């Protein structure tokens, strides 16, 4: 078995037994990135020198017998998470040469643990999109089929893990941006409960929806990463003191006691037959394992897309107001007055989709439209939360498709904003309700493209959804990509 196809647990074992050193492991991944990433464009920045220095320091911890679960193990980071002295671009011209003067909290935690940071991964600009084709640095390709999208906005993270260019990745999820690319690329991605992981240092898109989470080859590996990055942070007032800390604690649990809810609204029109077949197969496997399955309903589902796009765009219009070229980032060379400078900077620095969302958010918040749009979107948010609360009175977790389709051809869909927005229908309710959700591969379509299913849990019950996902992964034959 090739070294770079191994789980985090196996890599830990090999490092501790001195079968390989952290430097050797890091060099192996860097070599593979240099040889292969040209095909998929999953990295924006590769930090070879910094990674090798971190590997040398990590090896000292390993040699001293002080290694933790990720010590000496390489990971990569979505390029909207601040890394001190390493370019952080959000895949935008606006931040093309921005070098953060500080580390995000999740980065501080990884470094304290001795993890090795390989580089920064490609994404949709400012995390707005679900195809990873809006990047200023060129689109990302799906390793399973280079003519198809990897999903987004964390397409680089998901594609790099699928292509064995890193064993695990950190990414962010605002409306599905971890789960959907994990689904399209045949890997596992976890969006934690809102408030489980600090957003300090995550370049903000929609502050009430954004969460950082892991992408890896398995639910167990996601749990290993989550335990390092999760937890209360004084720098983020939305983090909870009640946070998951033993994310792998229910791996191997008895599934007879698990009640699974299947919301009818997620299996209606618009969901492809291949996706329905694969997810239904997975549900039957869970029944064989002893889970009880019941049909449930999310009546407010029909408002989900509107609520999500109105809330997220409104917040984005506020969060992206800081990009004016004055203190950091791109600055236009045109502009004789202060006002003109700012307007030209934003016109030249932002891509189309970002401008579209800022306009939508400005519309939703502006006088004359606020009551009919934004206020009702916030109310719909409450309705969706109530619907989930009702379901969780009788279910321990919920299973849905992660996306209505599998990965589509590059250029087929992403030029139509409405079509793109509707494709988020399976993921956005989870962000609106602040719940944890994990996507894992449950099948392949007629073209061999991965199908993902999402397992949604109660707040701060990441352990249950990881345990449930792991149970399926152990019996499912995941197909590795050969690139």
């Amino acid at each position, binding site marked *: 078995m090739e070294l770079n196809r191994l789980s985090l647990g196996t890599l830990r074992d090999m490092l501790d037994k001195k079968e390989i050193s952290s430097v050797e492991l890091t060099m192996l991944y860097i070599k593979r990135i240099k040889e292969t990433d040209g095909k998929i464009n999953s990295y924006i920045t590769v930090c070879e020198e910094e990674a090798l220095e971190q590997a040398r320091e990590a090896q000292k911890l390993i040699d001293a017998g002080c290694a933790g679960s990720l010590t000496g193990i390489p990971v990569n980071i979505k390029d909207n998470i601040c890394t001190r002295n390493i370019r952080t671009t959000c895949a935008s011209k606006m931040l093309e040469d921005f070098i953060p003067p500080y580390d995000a909290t999740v980065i501080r935690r990884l470094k304290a643990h001795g993890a090795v940071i390989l580089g920064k991964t490609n994404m949709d600009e400012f995390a707005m999109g679900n195809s990873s084709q809006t990047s200023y640095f060129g689109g990302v390709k799906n390793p399973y089929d280079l003519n198809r999208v990897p999903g987004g906005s964390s397409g680089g993270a998901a594609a790099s893990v699928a292509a064995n260019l890193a064993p695990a990745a950190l990414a962010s999820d605002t409306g599905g941006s971890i789960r959907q690319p994990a689904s399209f690329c045949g890997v596992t991605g976890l969006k934690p409960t809102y408030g489980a992981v600090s957003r300090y240092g995550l370049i903000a898109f929609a502050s009430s929806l954004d969460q950082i989470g892991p992408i890896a080859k398995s639910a167990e590996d996601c749990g290993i990463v989550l335990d390092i990055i999760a937890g209360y942070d004084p720098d983020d007032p939305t983090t909870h003191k009640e946070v998951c800390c033993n994310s792998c604690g229910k791996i191997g649990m008895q599934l007879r006691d698990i009640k699974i809810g299947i919301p009818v609204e997620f299996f209606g029109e618009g969901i492809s037959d291949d996706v329905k077949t694969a997810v239904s197969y997975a549900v039957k496997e869970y029944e064989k394992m002893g889970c009880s399955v019941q049909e449930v309903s999310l009546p407010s589902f029909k408002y989900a897309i509107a609520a999500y*796009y109105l809330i997220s765009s409104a917040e984005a219009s506020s969060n992206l107001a800081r990009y*004016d070229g004055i203190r950091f980032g791109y600055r236009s060379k045109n502009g004789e007055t202060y006002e003109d400078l700012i307007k030209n900077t934003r016109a030249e620095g932002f891509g189309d989709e970002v401008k*579209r969302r*800022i306009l939508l958010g400005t519309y939703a918040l502006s006088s004359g439209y606020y009551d009919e749009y934004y206020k009702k979107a916030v109310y719909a948010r*409450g309705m969706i939360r109530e619907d989930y609360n009702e379901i969780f009175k009788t279910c321990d977790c919920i299973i849905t498709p992660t996306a209505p389709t599998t990965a589509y051809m590059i250029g087929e869909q992403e030029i139509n904003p409405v079509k793109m927005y*509707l494709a988020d229908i399976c993921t956005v309710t989870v962000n609106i309700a602040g719940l944890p959700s994990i996507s894992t591969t449950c099948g392949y379509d007629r073209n061999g493209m991965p199908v993902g299913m999402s397992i949604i849990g109660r707040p701060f019950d990441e352990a249950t959804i990881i345990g449930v996902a792991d149970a399926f992964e152990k019996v499912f034959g995941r197909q590795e990509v050969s690139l």
Partner: protein
Amino acid sequence: MVDVELVRYLAELCRINMSEKELKAKADEMSDIINLMDSIKEIKICNNSLIPDNSIYYRDLEEDMAADSLDRDEILKNAKGSREGYFSVPKVV
């Protein structure tokens, strides 16, 4: 229906310059997008408890305390224009 004048107004509010061609294109796109958003208008707000005052959890607020911030030179490194420890910009007045 979103027209060019509305997009022009929104672009002014959010400080993004747009050409006439771009305004027209965005008006067409925004019309389709707002049609998609219009489903939200059918909601009747009848239970005010669902409009959250604090849907986002905030831990107990802390006392303001003076503490070190980022180094000024570090912050200025990312600025395209700086002079004598300040950000420099075109004339405002």
